[in-house]
């Protein structure tokens, strides 16, 4: 059993590792790569998969649930509220109009009206998984068209719930005897609440939603804080997974879509300081499961059926895609999207979604229709999903360059959330002072810190502080490193600082780095690493103390001040000069010996080198001598 599992995992991973990079290199996007890999290893390709294909699909659907959670995390409640118009208006009309037209066509093609209506509803849905992944890969998620796509998909996810409720009412036109429900989806049929009267069911649904919102608001933060305080990263990952799985289970028990529930939880947590950490923890699981899901879709395409009725299937695919495309385009224009954004929406959403697999199985089980109707349509759904990445590429390469308006750029500042120009990594005494100065002057800062208690305290003062290890690439991405201008490094240890410098240089070369250094050694390392702005943390403070010492000894305040400034400039020059001279000695000398060597070096330079008392402009001595000569001559 476990050997079988390992073999399956090996096949899936191999297929993904080979196909996805090739697809990405060819500019086809990862979704198409997964789909092709699925076809190759599927029953009509190499036949490497056992009977578990169907189960894998259900398992992998969990990737969609995770994706919705992540989408929710990106959406603050305020933004969701702003999107209510597109969600209800555009999304609602898309589902209603597409259902009506598709059902009418199906009815005209000879299906009884009940079956036609059921099919129409199913075809109205689009694929959240494929669309969001494709849009995200192309950076289109935050454009107007991307947001419209998201709004429509969100409404569709909600619409699945009443559809599941309506299906049993449409039964009765199928002549055949009740089948044994071929192990189909128990998903919606058997839940804790299914035996209850409708009012109690409604109550249970409301209670579950309230539990998510209130729990997310008041319970999760202390829990995450306690977990974060253990400083065990895997425990945080486990907690994040537990949260998502727990909500999915709860939602299933009250008959709601798990994706919807986790989306809600994501929105509730969007304002929390753990948002970035949650994102980067769930992200890999979501990616793998979604990949698995796409593989399963590819593998499930029934080529035997297609080859048996090629014209029918082809005709249906074209019919469905053109129908959905036309309706989407028309609605987008009604809702005043720019031409290129309307086309983006229409090219993104014309496929039928993964919920179709569930609903067709459910429909057969509930005897809404039988296999002769469902099976060809399932093939149509799979093909339409596989076509989506190709359509998107077609849009990107052929259509978009010919459409004038470039709304993406103009829309950018308004999109998802406001990005701050400065990221401060580490918010102890040093970083917080920098942050306070910038904020006091109206500069927004995003703070990354991995001290859970501190993060919590700072949040209470309304700072945008996030918990996490700042040297991680994904966390930097989440914090908006691509849009930021400055990265301030005020971390606790030189090692982590250097790690972050390397990460930032590699992935975000546009970021200007300002780094706190601890001592000479550390300053050398940072300068060597190519950071031009290096600040030894004790330098200015000790010079201020020295200045006051000079004053107490009777120096004029301004003289002491000038002396400290001169010394500071000279000392900074020395650090930079010595960095160049260090060379290979670092390799041979232990750090402690290096420090002593550096100290000796600079003390030597102090003794032999420059006179630190300058300001000759105020010195009258040479003038006096000059005058004396002039006077002697003239006298």
């Amino acid at each position, binding site marked *: 059993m476990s050997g079988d599992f390992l073999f399956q995992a090996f096949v899936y991973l191999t297929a993904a590792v080979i196909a996805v990079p090739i697809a990405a290199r060819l500019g086809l996007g990862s979704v198409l790569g997964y789909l092709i890999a699925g076809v190759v290893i599927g029953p009509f390709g190499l036949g490497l998969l056992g009977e578990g294909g169907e189960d894998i699909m259900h398992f992998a659907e969990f990737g969609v649930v995770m994706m919705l959670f992540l989408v929710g995390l990106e959406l603050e409640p305020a933004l969701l509220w702003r999107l209510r118009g597109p969600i209800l208006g555009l999304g609602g009309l898309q589902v209603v109009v597409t259902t009506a037209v598709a059902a009418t066509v199906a009815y005209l093609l000879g299906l009884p009206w009940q079956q036609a209506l059921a099919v129409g509803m199913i075809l109205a849905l689009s694929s959240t998984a494929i669309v969001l992944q494709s849009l995200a890969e192309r950076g289109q998620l935050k454009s107007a068209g991307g947001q419209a796509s998201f709004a429509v998909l969100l409404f569709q996810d909600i619409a699945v719930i009443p559809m599941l409720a309506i299906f049993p009412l449409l039964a009765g036109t199928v002549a055949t005897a009740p089948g044994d429900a071929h192990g189909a989806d128990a998903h919606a049929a058997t839940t804790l609440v299914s035996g209850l009267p409708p009012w109690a069911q409604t109550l249970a649904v409301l209670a579950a939603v309230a539990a998510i919102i209130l729990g997310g608001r008041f319970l999760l933060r202390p829990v995450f804080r306690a977990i974060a305080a253990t400083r065990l990263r895997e425990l945080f990952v486990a907690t994040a997974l537990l949260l998502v799985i727990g909500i999915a289970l709860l939602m299933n028990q009250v008959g709601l879509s798990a994706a919807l529930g986790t989306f809600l939880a994501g929105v509730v947590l969007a304002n929390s300081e753990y948002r970035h950490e949650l994102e980067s923890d769930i992200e890999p699981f979501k990616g793998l499961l979604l990949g698995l899901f796409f593989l399963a879709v590819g593998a499930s395409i029934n080529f035997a059926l297609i080859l048996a009725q090629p014209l029918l299937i082809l005709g249906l695919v074209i019919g469905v895609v053109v129908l959905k495309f036309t309706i989407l385009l028309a609605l987008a224009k009604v809702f005043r999207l720019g031409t290129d954004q309307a086309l983006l929406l229409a090219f993104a959403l014309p496929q039928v979604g993964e919920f179709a697999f569930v609903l067709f199985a459910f429909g057969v089980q509930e005897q809404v229709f039988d296999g002769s109707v469902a099976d060809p349509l399932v093939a149509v759904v799979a093909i339409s999903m596989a076509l989506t990445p190709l359509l998107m590429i077609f849009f990107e390469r052929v259509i978009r360059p010919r459409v004038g308006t470039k709304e993406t750029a103009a829309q950018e500042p308004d999109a998802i959330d406001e990005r701050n120009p400065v990221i401060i990594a580490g918010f102890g005494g040093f970083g917080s002072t920098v942050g306070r100065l910038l904020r006091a002057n109206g500069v927004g800062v995003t703070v990354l810190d991995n001290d859970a208690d501190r993060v919590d305290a700072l949040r209470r003062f309304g700072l945008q502080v996030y918990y996490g290890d700042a040297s991680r690439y994904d966390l930097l991405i989440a914090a908006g490193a691509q849009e930021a201008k400055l990265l301030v490094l005020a971390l606790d240890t030189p090692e982590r600082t250097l790690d972050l410098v390397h990460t930032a240089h590699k992935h975000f070369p546009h970021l200007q780095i300002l780094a706190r250094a601890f001592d000479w050694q550390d300053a050398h390392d940072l300068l060597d690493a190519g950071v031009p702005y290096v600040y030894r943390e004790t330098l200015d403070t000790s010079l201020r103390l020295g200045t006051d010492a000079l004053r107490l000894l009777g*120096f*004029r*305040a*301004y*003289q002491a001040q000038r002396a400290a400034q001169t010394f500071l400039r000279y000392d900074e020059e020395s650090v930079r000069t010595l960095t160049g001279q260090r060379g290979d000695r670092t390799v041979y000398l232990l750090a402690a010996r290096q420090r002593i060597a550096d100290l000796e070096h600079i003390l030597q330079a102090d003794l032999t080198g420059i006179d630190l008392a300058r*300001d000759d402009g105020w*010195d*009258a001595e040479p003038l006096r001598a000059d005058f*004396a000569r002039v006077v002697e001559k003239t006298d």
Partner: protein
Amino acid sequence: MTRILILFAHPALEKSRVHRRLVRVAQEMPGVTFNDLYEAYPTFDIDVRREQALLAEHDLIVLQHPLYWYSTPALLKQWQDLVLEHGWAYGSQGHALRGKRLLIILSAGGRAEAYQPGAFNRFTIREFLAPIEQTAYLCGMAYLPPLIFHGAHRMTLDDIGQAAGHYRHVLEALRDDALDPAALGAWQTLNDALNIMPMIGKSTQAVTQ
């Protein structure tokens, strides 16, 4: 009794022989407030409210400084820029300084005859100080002729002692209202008005006469 505020500006007092001596006199004199600007604001971060409060409390404002490049040291210019605010010192609502008097006491390296048309410095010191004179006028202050210690670089210790005596005499006379400001207005410098010769060398006498 006139309340005197001395705004003293010297970036390198430790290098000055003349002002060190004058400062000692001023600091010991009753009825005189001595405000050492470079000591109070070594980072040029002037406390405007404190300075305005000081100005309000006094009747005679003395600017005391060495003449650098025919003008004041940098901090004293910064002080003018920041403290003499519109709406406070001047403008339709700015009456805080109205009726007060302004006196400049400065040291200059060159001899008196060098500050003449056709001479080495081509202008009189009074002419070089025109911006401050106009500032006083704009603020509604009476501008007194400046007191100048010429040839500061060549003073002997005796010269400096003599200069300090004149300095004390002028401040005391102004404090005790022994000098009539209106009568002083006609003179180019306070040196002329009081027949003070705090300069070294024989040439001094000729100039002040």
